């Protein structure tokens, strides 16, 4: 039995708070934790499949052109080689998040250096790898293709454009104003598990174990790519070794493995090499951003301008949504927001953790620091004075707004010194020490979701959905929600995720997983509660469930009378998404040291305070925040995709050259979870937290660099050479 709830109104009853099991929000350890720490949790490539052969992708060594010939014999002649697959259905780009259709195919047309063009299949991995390297491919290159974003070839993204009032005049009339331009480099998701798939074909049905974030969309994308009906496909992603956007859409290895398995009638495993993941999967676009801020003598914003230039391949709809939170974070009646997209021939630009805010917030918040200095106002105070009481562009009410609390609680926990600020007040040996802060904001998303909950005759529960856990804690929060509603401990709830045969949710991405699937589980559990209340002849609101017993002492097993109780919850966000502007907010505080002679920056300590609705699990939510702050450190100091200006190929295509933060880069971090119930965010009053932790954090570090040593750097990442060049004598 399926129960559908469309949420048109805020869920102000906060029913989860009235339940008695007492597990919701608690710092419960991950229920799949022991499987992960003992190495028994299977990731996509790790299923033991009888007779599985190995495929290795071959990628293009030109930027743009066509393939005139693939000499299959050059590989087939090698030991163990079974086939060279160069089927026209091979995909050459990953699908964008929620694309719901096949990405670009036609592998013989080359659009970027590193594009997958064929698959070599052999009995062993070593044989396939060697043969893939020796496959002879003849190209006909096109004349030079643009590989650098140039404003002259950029198109304005009109649905992003806002022009209100007269920003130029506001700037010249302002008591204080800043007009600054920043650049940010491209970023890679670099999830630790490389993209991988094992495809099995039984002549009728295709089963693919793959590393994917959004099965509900991925199955349609795969079906479209293969021209095989969805009901003949099953996707399984029980464990995903990190996604961060890179596994939102079906990617090249899963399609290639499927085609090979169907053609050869043998199971085929394809695992991308780390270099292929860098070169053939999503990049975050580099950006150039101009910020114009105008304020009155009290620091109240009168003008707000944010213009950004981003890039992508021809044919891709995605344009890094840099301005996403700029539309509502700060007031200013004279506004100009413009996003431009240049078409260039680097690999696909797409979602990398917190698309938009990840790069939009660090520049905005660095510019706010410049403004605070000019206006002589403490940076925390400047933000507090600029919290709008409604969405400044559309006039919508906020569903809930915790920026002020985050700023205050964060400042207090960090020990923020609000005395007048000036660079170079503290030096220890070669090191200048300083502090900085920034606001955090990330739009809230929530989507339609289904989950099936079975309260079993034996008094345990089972939750089934195709939702994924990509490290975000889905397994555990689902067990907590069901446990709280049904009066069970989380370990009495079996959570079965990542199987497209289960009821479908929206998947993991855009921080919408927890509020969406959590709401579906809630709806299903509420229906089960109603059935139980019926049995007892009471109203659901009077039903108390805890420790596997009803309030009157009757054990659940007795109430169930030997039968399972099954309900499918179908949650759909209704008018709440039109009637309110919902967002997570937060504040970052950082202390850094900067070496006077080398320009090297080290983070001494960092704190984030975040308000993101109901905290479903204080332990895993904190971990999400820690992850985001760690990414902020990478974005601020080290992470940069570097492209060859001649052919656009990615130069630093591995983990030695693309510098993600390592243990020694990350100091003790503090997280303050600000209490909030956002009734218009979802039926469980929760928002997402996977991304907020990196939406602005890099600016806290940039601002601390300036406060430490006086170097205002306008380019991320703030590497030693850049800091040194900006350092006053």
């Amino acid at each position: 039995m399926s129960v559908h709830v469309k949420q048109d109104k805020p869920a102000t009853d906060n029913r989860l708070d009235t339940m008695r099991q007492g597990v919701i929000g608690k710092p419960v350890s991950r229920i799949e934790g022991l499987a992960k720490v003992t190495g028994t949790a299977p990731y996509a490539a790790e299923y033991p499949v009888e007779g599985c052969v190995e495929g290795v992708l071959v990628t293009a060594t030109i930027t743009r052109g066509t393939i005139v010939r693939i000499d299959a014999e050059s590989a087939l002649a090698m030991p163990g080689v079974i086939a060279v697959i160069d089927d026209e259905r091979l995909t050459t780009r990953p699908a964008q998040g929620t694309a719901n259709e096949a990405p670009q195919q036609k592998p013989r047309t080359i659009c970027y250096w590193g594009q997958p063009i064929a698959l070599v299949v052999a009995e062993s991995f070593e044989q396939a790898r060697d043969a893939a390297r020796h496959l002879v491919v003849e190209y006909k290159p096109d004349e030079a293709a643009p590989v650098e974003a140039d404003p002259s070839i950029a198109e304005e993204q009109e649905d992003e454009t806002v022009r209100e009032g007269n920003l130029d005049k506001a700037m010249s009339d302002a008591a204080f104003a800043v007009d600054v331009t920043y650049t940010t480099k491209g970023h890679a998701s670099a999830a630790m598990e490389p993209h991988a798939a094992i495809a099995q074909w039984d002549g009728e049905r295709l089963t693919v174990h793959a590393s994917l974030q959004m099965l509900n969309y991925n199955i349609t994308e795969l079906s479209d790519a293969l021209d095989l009906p969805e009901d003949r496909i099953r996707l399984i992603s029980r464990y995903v070794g990190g996604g961060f956007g890179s596994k939102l859409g079906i990617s090249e290895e899963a399609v290639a493995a499927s085609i090979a398995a169907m053609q050869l009638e043998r199971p085929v495993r394809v695992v991308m090499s780390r270099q292929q993941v860098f070169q053939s999967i999503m990049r975050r676009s580099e950006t150039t951003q101009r910020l114009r801020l105008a304020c009155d003598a009290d620091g109240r914003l009168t003008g707000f301008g944010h213009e950004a230039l981003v890039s992508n391949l021809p044919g891709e709809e995605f344009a890094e949504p840099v301005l996403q939170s700029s539309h509502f974070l700060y007031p200013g009646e004279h506004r100009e927001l413009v996003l431009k997209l240049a078409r260039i021939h680097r690999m696909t630009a797409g979602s990398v953790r917190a698309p938009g805010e990840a790069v939009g917030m660090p520049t905005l918040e660095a510019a706010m620091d410049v403004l605070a200095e000019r206006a002589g106002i403490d940076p925390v105070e400047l933000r507090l004075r600029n919290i709008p009481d409604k969405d400044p562009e559309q006039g919508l009410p906020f569903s809930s707004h915790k920026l002020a609390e985050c700023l205050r609680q964060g400042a207090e926990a960090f020990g923020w010194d609000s005395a007048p600020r000036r660079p170079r007040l503290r030096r220890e040996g070669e090191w200048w020490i300083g502090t900085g802060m920034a606001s955090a904001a990330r739009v809230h998303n929530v989507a339609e979701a289904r989950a099936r909950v079975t309260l079993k005759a034996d008094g345990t529960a089972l939750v089934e959905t195709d939702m994924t856990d990509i490290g975000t804690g889905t397994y555990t929060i689902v067990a907590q929600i069901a446990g709280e509603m049904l009066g069970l401990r989380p370990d009495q709830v079996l959570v079965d995720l990542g199987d497209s045969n289960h009821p479908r949710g929206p998947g993991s991405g855009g921080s919408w997983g927890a509020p969406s699937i959590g709401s579906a589980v809630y709806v299903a559990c509420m229906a089960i509660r109603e059935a139980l209340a019926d049995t007892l002849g009471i109203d659901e609101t009077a039903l108390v469930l805890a420790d596997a017993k009803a309030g009157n002492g009757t054990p659940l097993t007795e109430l169930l009378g030997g039968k399972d109780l099954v309900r499918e919850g179908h949650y759909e966000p209704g008018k709440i998404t039109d009637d309110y502007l919902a967002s997570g907010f937060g504040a970052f505080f950082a202390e850094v040291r900067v070496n006077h002679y080398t320009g090297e920056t080290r983070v001494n300590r960092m704190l984030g305070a975040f308000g993101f609705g109901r905290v479903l699990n204080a332990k895993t939510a904190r971990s999400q925040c820690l992850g985001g702050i760690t990414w902020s450190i990478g974005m601020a100091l080290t992470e940069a995709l570097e492209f060859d200006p001649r052919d656009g190929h990615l130069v630093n295509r591995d983990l030695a050259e693309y510098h993600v933060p390592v243990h020694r880069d990350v100091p003790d971090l503090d997280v303050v979870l600000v209490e909030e119930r956002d009734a218009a965010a979802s039926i469980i009053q929760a928002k997402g937290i996977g991304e907020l932790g990196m939406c602005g954090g890099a600016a806290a570090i940039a601002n601390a660099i300036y406060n430490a040593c006086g170097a205002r750097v306008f380019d991320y990442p703030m590497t030693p050479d850049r800091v040194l060049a900006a350092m006053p004598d």
Partner: protein
Amino acid sequence: MPDELIVNGTPHPLPQDPRVTLLDFLRHDLGLTGTKKGCDHGQCGACTVIVNGLRINSCLTLAAMHEGHQVTTIEGLGIADEPSPLQRAFVEHDGFQCGYCTPGQICSATAMLDEIANGWPSDASETLDGPFEASGAEIRERMSGNLCRCGAYANIVAAIRHVAESEPAA
């Protein structure tokens, strides 16, 4: 034993193909997929195993080079019913998210604590002669070869410190 290597106490014949790395031997030939491949180039530490008591990146060495060697993988450190102290501490402190770097972190930390106990200095040590303490700075330096893209570092360090403090190495 000639032509064999010993994994978690069990001898296995070396692979026929000399190109097989120790990592692929464990994952493909033996089905011990707890050891992860993150880069295949010695750049991430996901493949860390313990060979004759020392931690190494199993992707950077060929299986054929380990004749007669004792290899300990994550599966050999503990099982769900009987986890090792570090495995338990990682769960308690949430020292992971996706879990993909985790076996490597735990194998690395297991051997790293022995290195500290045995008086091996690191870049973070103030002197070259021990004894050294498993301080935050020492752990961070010594664990920097194990990347965690989920960014669980703060919790990983807490988990390791917890074990180091509660069970001083013998």
